[in-house]
């Protein structure tokens, strides 16, 4: 019955997935307190001790006892990980040793003070990142945290207590914790403990104590701690209900979008949106939109955006950088595509001009968002930047040619106007100036046009409106027409300038996509891995400005494959960042959460098969955050590169697989060849003998004799074959030692030829030996064997023709050749004939031979310090010539008399 009910329930699959996702990871337990001194460490250690006493595999990773005897007593009998000593500016800092912890791999590790900031040069800037890595390695972690360090509450805490919170922990860490234990005492008790000296506070903080440990502050912090724990319990309840498929009213999942700009309010907006998202139990995204052609160049503002987006990520948001000339439309388009239910924007403080020309950003967002709720957040006036800043900042560089052009155009307009007024008596010359404004707008864009408008306004007034050569205006009509002119010129100039800017942006984009196309074409042209990487490196170094490197895994470890400039070496920190990037598929190094102090950043080359390598680069200016343009370009280029690298790796694998297959085929051929060579003589022997036994009476004596002769001959053949096999294995194992005697090559040749004539007939071999044949060093017996093998081959494959042996001196070498007049060897096989068991044709359908003759010759010749080579055709498109070369032995000129 129970089982049946079990089956009837259908748990929410998403909830179960989340549970399964957690299973591979370690479990995190957080001991949460409202303030220092509530006894978090004590509670944590007491629990750890109980577990250890029960036989649990517990290790103390790092705990600060602050000299408190009660706490230190709890450490007795515990396994404590030694700390890592990091030298820093003459001092020695002690830090948690994460590598030692990963190596030890306990079931549970205790790491105190989650919000701690690690010493510089550590792998992660923050301890919570160390803890994340431990959890990823399936190690359970217990840790302690004060509520004030929670990222989303940091600003609330500093508002309430007046103490700035510098060390923060992302909310997601606490959200993903398996358990949260609230360690709580009342504010009165805590203050009493403080007075009794039971609360350790760092020296520096003592001054703040008076301000911090007030009953009001502590009550507020306590409430925050209690409330966030209660929220968590609530979440757990919901999760439990879902996993166990208990019916209930589920919140519709909201999706929040916060839109930030480059001002001081961005972080406040992000925190506010974060709190809203938490309350709504909604996911959220923070978006920043830039207008092409108006990219921020001011480092202060760039950092603001960067910081705000990083903050958002720490608070658990997704972030997105967009680019569009119409910001509102782009945000709405994104919101609709992603099913955003609420958009959060700050109230705009646009300048008057902006308000004249259009509406403020927030107003426009409210007006145009017909189907999405928009929340306009009012933020405190905190060093809010003047709108005027916005107008001055952008395009300082662009102002120079544009401004000079405006000046020149207006001066030109004045000159033309003066000339015209000499010739004609025109009532109004404003059109000439308007022309100058439009000219500036079309050639240099918006800013130049606005400058030209203002200059024209002044110049027109000064030169052409009575009283002349003053800035005063006499008649009210003239004043009116002057103002109208200003309005018209600003308006048309703005319009024309915007057109120009948009055209410029389009041109830029076209250029970008063209260069991307060019890049992918270059990559497509390269097939070998190194070619791909060099092509990519040559291009990428132009984009990033500094040095670039590519690391590719070889034999299980990342190796530096390509570097530009070529002498770049990676230090240990950089290599571990690269390994991290490769293993975790994340960006590491400069301006990331992993090893941010490095000069280089490392990005994985991601393909559908996983990471295939790592790209590292050194940015041109370390201080500047990468612009969205850069980010986009780099991402696109690296995607292309990753695919090209993947492709070249796959080609390499295919080639290797083909080689393996070839090898396999060779092995099969070799086996069947061996089997044929052994069986054929055996077949004759066994057949002849069985015939003799069975049919002896019916055979004439001559036939019996013939059968016996065949058996004998085949026995010899088998013996030769086996001897060859043994020779071969002797040569291969290095057991064969050739003597290095002084040899008369002519003698050896004559002996071998004599043997050959006995075996294959007197007419089968011709010789031609030069009279001045030198001495060589070697083994007479082996050389004779080589020559006999060559003659045997010439006889077998020479098609019945004569074999010719030549010998002569060529400089410091003695050259011996054996030439036949057979069909020859195909050019492709010329080197393969020396391979073991290689024979032309099929495995068993050819001349009786061992396939070892030439490879044995090669082994013997090389053992004597000579070389062997096959040439074909030898003459008149026929024949094979085997050429042996031996170094001439230097003999003493004469024997003593």
């Amino acid at each position, binding site marked *: 019955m129970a089982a049946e009910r079990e089956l009837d329930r259908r748990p929410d699959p998403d909830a179960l997935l989340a549970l399964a996702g957690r299973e591979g990871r370690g479990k995190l337990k957080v001991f949460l307190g409202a303030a220092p001194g509530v006894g978090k460490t004590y509670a944590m250690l007491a629990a750890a001790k109980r577990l250890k006493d029960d036989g649990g595999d517990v290790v103390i990773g790092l705990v600060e006892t602050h000299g408190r005897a009660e706490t230190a007593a709890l450490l007795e009998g515990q396994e404590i990980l030694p700390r890592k000593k990091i030298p820093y500016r003459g001092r020695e800092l002690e830090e948690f040793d994460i590598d030692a912890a990963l190596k030890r791999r306990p079931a549970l590790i205790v790491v105190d003070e989650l919000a701690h900031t690690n010493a510089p040069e550590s792998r992660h800037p923050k301890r919570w990142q160390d803890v994340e890595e431990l959890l990823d390695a399936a190690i359970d972690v217990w840790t302690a945290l004060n509520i004030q360090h929670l990222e989303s509450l940091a600003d609330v805490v500093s508002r309430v207590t007046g103490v700035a919170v510098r060390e923060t922990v992302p909310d997601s860490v606490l959200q993903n914790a398996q358990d949260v234990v609230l360690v709580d005492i009342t504010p009165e008790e805590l203050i009493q403990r403080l007075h009794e000296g039971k609360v350790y506070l760092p020296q520096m903080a003592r001054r703040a104590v008076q301000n911090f440990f007030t009953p009001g502050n502590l009550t507020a912090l306590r409430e925050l701690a209690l409330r966030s724990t209660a929220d968590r319990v609530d979440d757990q309840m919901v999760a439990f209900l879902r996993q166990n498929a208990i019916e209930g009213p589920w919140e519709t999942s909201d999706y929040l979008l916060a839109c930030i700009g480059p001002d001081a309010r961005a972080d406040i907006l992000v925190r506010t949106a974060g709190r809203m998202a938490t309350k709504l139990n909604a996911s959220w995204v923070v978006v920043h939109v830039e207008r092409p052609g108006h990219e921020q160049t001011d480092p202060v503002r760039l950092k603001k955006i960067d910081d705000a987006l990083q903050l958002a990520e720490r608070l658990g948001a997704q972030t997105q950088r967009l680019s569009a000339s119409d910001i509102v439309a782009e945000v709405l388009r994104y919101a609709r595509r992603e099913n955003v239910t609420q958009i959060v924007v700050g109230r705009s403080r646009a300048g008057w001009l902006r308000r004249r020309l259009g509406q403020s950003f927030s107003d426009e967002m409210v007006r145009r968002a017909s189907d999405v709720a928009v929340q306009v957040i009012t933020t405190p006036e905190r060093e809010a930047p003047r709108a005027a800043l916005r107008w001055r900042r952008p395009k300082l560089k662009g102002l120079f040619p544009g401004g000079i052009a405006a000046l020149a155009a207006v001066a030109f307009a004045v000159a033309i106007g003066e000339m015209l007024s000499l010739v004609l008596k025109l009532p109004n010359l404003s059109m000439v100036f308007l022309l100058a404004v439009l000219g500036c707008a079309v050639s240099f864009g918006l800013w130049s046009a606005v400058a030209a408008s203002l200059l024209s306004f002044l110049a027109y007034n000064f030169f052409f409106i009575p009283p002349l050569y003053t800035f005063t205006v006499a008649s009210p009509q003239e004043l009116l027409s002057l103002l109208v002119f200003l309005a018209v010129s600003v308006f048309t100039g703005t319009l024309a300038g915007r057109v120009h800017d948009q055209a410029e942006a389009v041109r830029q984009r076209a250029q970008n996509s063209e260069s991307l196309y060019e890049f992918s074409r270059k990559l497509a042209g390269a097939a070998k891995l190194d070619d791909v990487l060099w092509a990519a490196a040559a291009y990428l170094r132009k984009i990033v400005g500094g040095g670039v490197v590519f690391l590719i895994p070889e034999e299980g470890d990342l190796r530096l494959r390509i570097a530009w400039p070529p002498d770049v070496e990676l230090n240990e920190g950089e290599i571990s960042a690269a390994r991290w990037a490769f293993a975790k598929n994340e960006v590491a190094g400069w301006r990331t959460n992993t090893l941010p102090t490095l000069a280089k950043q490392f990005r994985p080359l991601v393909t559908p098969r996983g990471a295939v390598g790592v790209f590292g680069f050194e940015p041109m200016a370390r201080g500047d955050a990468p612009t969205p343009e850069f980010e986009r370009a780099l991402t696109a280029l690296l995607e292309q590169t990753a695919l090209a690298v993947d492709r070249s790796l796959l080609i390499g694998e295919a080639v290797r697989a083909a080689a393996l297959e070839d090898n396999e085929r060779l092995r099969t051929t070799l086996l069947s060849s061996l089997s044929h060579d052994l069986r*054929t003589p055996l*077949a004759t022997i066994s*057949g002849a003998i*069985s015939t003799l036994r069975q049919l002896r009476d019916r055979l004439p004596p001559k*036939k019996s004799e*013939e*059968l016996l002769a*065949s058996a004998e001959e085949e026995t010899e053949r088998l013996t030769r074959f086996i001897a060859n096999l043994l020779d071969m294995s002797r040569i291969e194992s290095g057991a064969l030692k050739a003597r290095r005697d002084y040899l008369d090559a002519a003698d050896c040749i004559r002996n071998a030829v004599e043997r050959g004539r006995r075996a294959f007939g007197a007419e089968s071999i011709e010789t031609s030996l030069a009279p001045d044949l030198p001495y060589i060093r070697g083994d007479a017996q082996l050389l004779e064997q080589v020559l006999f093998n060559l003659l045997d081959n010439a006889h077998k494959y020479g098609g019945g023709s004569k074999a010719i042996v030549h010998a002569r001196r060529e400089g410091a070498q003695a050259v011996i050749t054996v030439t036949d007049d057979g069909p020859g060897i195909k050019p492709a096989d010329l080197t393969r004939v020396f391979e073991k068991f290689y024979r032309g044709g099929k495995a068993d359908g*050819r001349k009786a031979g061992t396939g070892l003759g030439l490879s044995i010759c090669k082994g013997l010749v090389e053992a004597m310090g000579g070389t062997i080579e096959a040439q074909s055709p030898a003459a008149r498109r026929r024949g094979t010539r085997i050429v042996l070369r031996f170094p001439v032995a230097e003999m003493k000129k004469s024997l003593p008399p």
Partner: protein
Amino acid sequence: MKQRVLIVDDEEQILKFLATALEASDYAVISARTGREALHMIATAAPDLVILDLGLPDMDGKEVLVRARAFSNLPVIVLSARDREAEKIEALDLGANDYVEKPFKIGELLARLRVAARLAAHEQAKPAVFEADGLRVDLERRLVTRDGVPVKLTPKEFDLLAFLVHHAGRVATHRQILLNVWGPAHAQDMPYLRVFVGQLRAKIEAKPEQPKLILTEPGVGYRLWTED
């Protein structure tokens, strides 16, 4: 009249001793050293039997077999140094009547030659009764007796035995048996066949654990023993 045997092999020594042995056993011998020559002689010299080596200089012996089967039904015994089962099966499935593996004893080859010749002679008039080692199979009346005692077989067991009787003395490949007894749908069901052969042996063999009648050709098929 002497039967004429064509020997196709490129090994001089083998040709020599085979010719000696076959002539001493009352066969007339002609020989060919290449596949082309062999095909020409099969077409023109009217041999009664062919002994075919698979490794020939100009073409594969299997190729010769395929081309010869296009115009001739004469018995072919494959002689080969290739010891892979796949090769034997392929040759048998391509229409070879039997095979002998090198090295071999002459008695074995002569016995196969006799079987092949007999089967060729009786191809039209199939024997109605098969007798060997106390087993008697009457194909027409579908009666099987062992030492005079009737043996009860299922229809499929009888079909299997009948197929082996038709091929008595030479090897029948697994595939040939499965195709003919069970049909094309079961051509690959080797384990099926093994079970049936086991059952059949239990009913007709004197000692089923040491079969004397249905002999296993490892990896290739089965052969029904004859008194030849």
